[in-house]
């Protein structure tokens, strides 16, 4: 059986890294450089991840 807590810890690390990168964009005022449309696309991906996380909660 997989070590689920280990696995989720790794996913947490990655998600924090995504958050950190967004904070970086915010604090450098880099939104215009990145482009609003790109940031919206990223948001869509994050919402999709949230949906998947809730689905996992349903399994639990």
């Amino acid at each position, binding site marked *: *059986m*997989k070590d*689920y*807590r280990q*696995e*989720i*810890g*790794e*996913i*947490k*690390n*990655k*998600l*924090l*890294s*995504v*958050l*950190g*990168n*967004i*904070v*970086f*964009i*915010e*604090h*450098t005022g*880099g*939104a215009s*450089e*990145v482009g*609003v449309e*790109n*940031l*919206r*696309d*990223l*948001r869509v*991906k*994050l*919402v*999709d*991840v*949230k949906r*998947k*996380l*809730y*689905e*996992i*909660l349903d*399994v*639990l």
Partner: protein
Amino acid sequence: MNNKNTISEKVRKIGAYPIRGKKATDIVIPTTTMASFPATIGAIALGLPTLPLIPAIALPIIGSSVYHALSDLMAIKLVNELKKQGYTPKQAYKNAVKIIGSVSKELDEFKEGLQRDIYRLSAGEVYDIKEDVNDLIEIDKAAIKKLDDIIG
């Protein structure tokens, strides 16, 4: 705990603090990752060349409020450090997209495995995993809110 070290001391040195109800020492990262602190920890963990120290610093203080973890003081320190390393917003965006894609895929696999193994897990294990998933949801929500703040 044999092959892992806490990073609470290093976290305190950079001005971070544990969240109420959570001990900084609760969360540990592998020794191999520790060795590189505070350099490009993410790069080692994720195989990305330009993803510096954010994950390692945020890790020990994740808890009830991700915003606390990314307090202004800390964020400024991080941003300055990353700028010094030549990190750009475009790189940050590209890495964020790449990582979120990987997370999405891993969550599919995670759910699939869980559906298969759920009856083999103890009540305590299920509780712990639930807590972890709730943490992930909080991080994800914080990231979405940050983006909303940026996009306006």
